[in-house]
C-alpha cells in the first residue's frame, strides 16, 4: 500500500466519521459545526479527485457561505426546540429506518463498484470543441458554452430562492431591510477583520473569476468569494443590509440571468441557434456573460444568508 493510498483511506474515514457526528451529535449546534468541518474536508476530497473547480466551489460555498448560514441559524434557534417538543421515533421504527438506509447505501455502493473502469465520457468532445470557445478551462466551457441553457436556468433558480426567502416577510416589512436593527457599535475585532479581509477578498474573487477562463476558477467561485466579503462586512456592521425594495439591488439580482438570456436570444438571431456564440467572438461574449453572473451571485448569496426583510421600509 502506497503512502497516497493510506492518505486516501485516512481522509475517507475522517470524512465518514465527521459526517456520522453531524447526524448523531447530541445538540444542533454541535451538529452544525460538524457540518462545517465536513464541508472543509470535502474540498480536500475533491482535490484528490482532480476536480479543482469543484473543490473551489465547495470551499467557498459548501463550507464558507453555508457555514455562516447554518451556524447563524443554529445560534438563533438555540432557545427554540427544547427536547420535550419533539416526538422521537420509537426504537423499532428507528431500526427499520436504519435497515432501509443501509440497504440504500449498499445498493449505491454496489453501483459504484460495478462502474466500468473507463466509463462513457464527454472529455474528448469537450476538448475538441474547446478552441472554438477560446477558453482553456473545459469546465467553464461546459458551464457557459456547451450547457449554457442549464446554467442560465440555474441562475433563475437563485433568483427564485431570493424571492422565496423575501416572501416569508410579514406584510408590513415587505420592501424593508433584512436583519434586526441592532446597536450601532460593531464588535471591534470583527470590524478589524472585515476591514482587512474585504479588499483582499475582492482582489482574490476577481482573480478567481478572471483566471477561470483558462485555469480552475470561474464565475461561481469568484462570485461566491465576493459574496462572502459582503457578508463579513455586513456581519461586522460596517454597512447595513440594503432595503430589499432598492432598485439597484433588484437589477443586480436579475442582471446575470437577463444578460445570459439576452446572449442566448442574440445567438438565435445572429449565429443561427439559441445560445450559439458567433465564431471568433465566443470568448468576449462568454466573459461578458460571466461578469454579470459574478455580479448577480455576489449579490444573491448575501441576500439568501441575510434572510427575509425584518424592518419596515424607509421611504
Amino acid at each position: 500500500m502506497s503512502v497516497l493510498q493510506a492518505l486516501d483511506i485516512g481522509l475517507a474515514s475522517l470524512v465518514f466519521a465527521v459526517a456520522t457526528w453531524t447526524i448523531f451529535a447530541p445538540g444542533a449546534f454541535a451538529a452544525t459545526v460538524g457540518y462545517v468541518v465536513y464541508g472543509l474536508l470535502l474540498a480536500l476530497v475533491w482535490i484528490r479527485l482532480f476536480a479543482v473547480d469543484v473543490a473551489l466551489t465547495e470551499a467557498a460555498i459548501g463550507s464558507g457561505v453555508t457555514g455562516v448560514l447554518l451556524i447563524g441559524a443554529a445560534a438563533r434557534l438555540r432557545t427554540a426546540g427544547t427536547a420535550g417538543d419533539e416526538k422521537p421515533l420509537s426504537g423499532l421504527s428507528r431500526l427499520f429506518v436504519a435497515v432501509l438506509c443501509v440497504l440504500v447505501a449498499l445498493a449505491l455502493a454496489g453501483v459504484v463498484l460495478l462502474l466500468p473502469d473507463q466509463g462513457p465520457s464527454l472529455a474528448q468532445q469537450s476538448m475538441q470543441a474547446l478552441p472554438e470557445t477560446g477558453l482553456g478551462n473545459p469546465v467553464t466551457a461546459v458551464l457557459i458554452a456547451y450547457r449554457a441553457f442549464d446554467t442560465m436556468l440555474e441562475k433563475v433558480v437563485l433568483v427564485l430562492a431570493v424571492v422565496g426567502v423575501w416572501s416569508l416577510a410579514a406584510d408590513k416589512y415587505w420592501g424593508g431591510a433584512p436583519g434586526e436593527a441592532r446597536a450601532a457599535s460593531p464588535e471591534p475585532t470583527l470590524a478589524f477583520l472585515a476591514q482587512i479581509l474585504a479588499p483582499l477578498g475582492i482582489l482574490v474573487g476577481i482573480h478567481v473569476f478572471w483566471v477561470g477562463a483558462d485555469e480552475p476558477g470561474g464565475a461561481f467561485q469568484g462570485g461566491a468569494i465576493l459574496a462572502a466579503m459582503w457578508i463579513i462586512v455586513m456581519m461586522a456592521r460596517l454597512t447595513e443590509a440594503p432595503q430589499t425594495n432598492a432598485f439597484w439591488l433588484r437589477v443586480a439580482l436579475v442582471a446575470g440571468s437577463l444578460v445570459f438570456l439576452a446572449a442566448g436570444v442574440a445567438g438565435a438571431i445572429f449565429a443561427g441557434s439559441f445560445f450559439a456564440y458567433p465564431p471568433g467572438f465566443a470568448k468576449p461574449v462568454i466573459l461578458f456573460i460571466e461578469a454579470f453572473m459574478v455580479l448577480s451571485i455576489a449579490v444573491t448569496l448575501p441576500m439568501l444568508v441575510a434572510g427575509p426583510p425584518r424592518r419596515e421600509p424607509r421611504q
Partner: protein
Amino acid sequence: MAEFLLATAGVILFTVAVGLVRILGGPGDADRLMAAQLIGTGGIGALLLISAATGAHGVEDVALGLALLAAFASAAFVNSAAPAEAPDSADGR
C-alpha cells in the same frame, strides 16, 4: 520527496482528527468553534502538501479561498449569539 510530503499531510490530518475528537464534543460551544478553526488550518496545510506532491494544478486558489473564509464560522457565531448591546466593552478593554 513526494512520499514525504504526502506522509506529512497524513500526519497533520491525523493530529487534526485527534484534536477534533477532543473538542467537537465540547463541553462548550467555544470548544466546538475551535474545532472549525483547527480543521481550517490543518486542512489548508494538508491541501498545500498534497498539491505539492501530486502536482494538481491551481490548488493555491482553493487554499486561498479557504484561508479567506477561515474565520467565518466564529464570526457568524458571535454575530448571531451576541446580545444586542455590548456590555463587554464597558469594562475598559
